[in-house]
């Protein structure tokens, strides 16, 4: 009996995810400037799509389930887009270095 063997699509997905992990760690050490961040986030998105489509079986689900699954990410995109559009276009963001309180000196006791 070999019907409990993992389907090939799962094995390929697992190998692909580990390969993408290796690629993203390797890429992080290459001097690519701003593209380092773009590469890391693109690979993270690719890994997430593999997990969503194959492991979470979204590719076999009906449109209603996919709409429910996409809704959270859709609203997240709106939140990130509107909020970051504000922050990146502010002339005085950040207003200065963050406040620095040392944790090593305990507060005075009264």
């Amino acid at each position: 009996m070999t019907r409990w063997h993992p389907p090939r699509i799962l094995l390929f997905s697992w190998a692909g995810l580990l390969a993408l992990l290796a690629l993203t760690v390797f890429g992080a050490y290459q001097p690519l400037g701003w593209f380092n961040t773009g590469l890391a986030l693109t690979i993270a998105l690719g890994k997430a799509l593999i997990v969503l489509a194959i492991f979470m079986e979204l590719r076999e689900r009906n449109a209603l389930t996919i709409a429910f699954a996409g809704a959270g990410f859709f609203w997240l995109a709106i939140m990130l887009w509107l909020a970051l559009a504000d922050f990146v276009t502010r002339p005085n963001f950040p207003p200065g270095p963050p406040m620095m309180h040392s944790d090593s000196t305990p507060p005075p006791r009264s």
Partner: protein
Amino acid sequence: MPEAHPAFQFVDLRQQHDVAQLGMWVFLATEVLFFGGLILAYSAYRIGYPEGFAEAARHTKIVIGASNTAILLTSSFLVAWAVLIVRLREGRIAALLLWGAAALGVIFLVLKGVEYSEEYREHLIPGLNFALDGPNAGAIKLFFAFYFVATGLHAVHVAVGIVVLVVIGIRARQDAYSDRYHSPITVAGLYWHFVDIVWIFLFALIYLPGRAP
């Protein structure tokens, strides 16, 4: 093994299964926005203090972080495998796969604990013993505040998932699931995979910045 019956409000098991899946996706949508708020705050301050965040990320333990990513990806693979074969009535093997995935979750948490203890020794914990100096110290402190809140909340999710996987594994071992009835294991799998997705993004945001020369 008694035949599974749908709850009274459902026409049949298939409809019950579809409703359970939709319900889980609604819950996961709230989780997307829960972690999304944290990631928004991180993004805003990373845009504000790019050098400080790059320096802070170099303090994180990338070997542990990458190992933990591989561990979670592998555990997700085991759960996806179990969810498929439980429909073929291979409950005993599915149980082993689920318990294997739970064990990988425990290893993940142990490594996270090792990481936290190293960060404690390096005085990187805001509010407890943070003691870095230099022009970027304030930004580094912000980064580590995000780091401990985000990874701590994620670790809570992993701990909940471990308990769920162990319980579902026991039910699978009892041959409770079949091609007709497998909502609990499918829904539990969705949760575990989602926890994996959150970690994929946390890994990219926490461990990878600032590594290039």
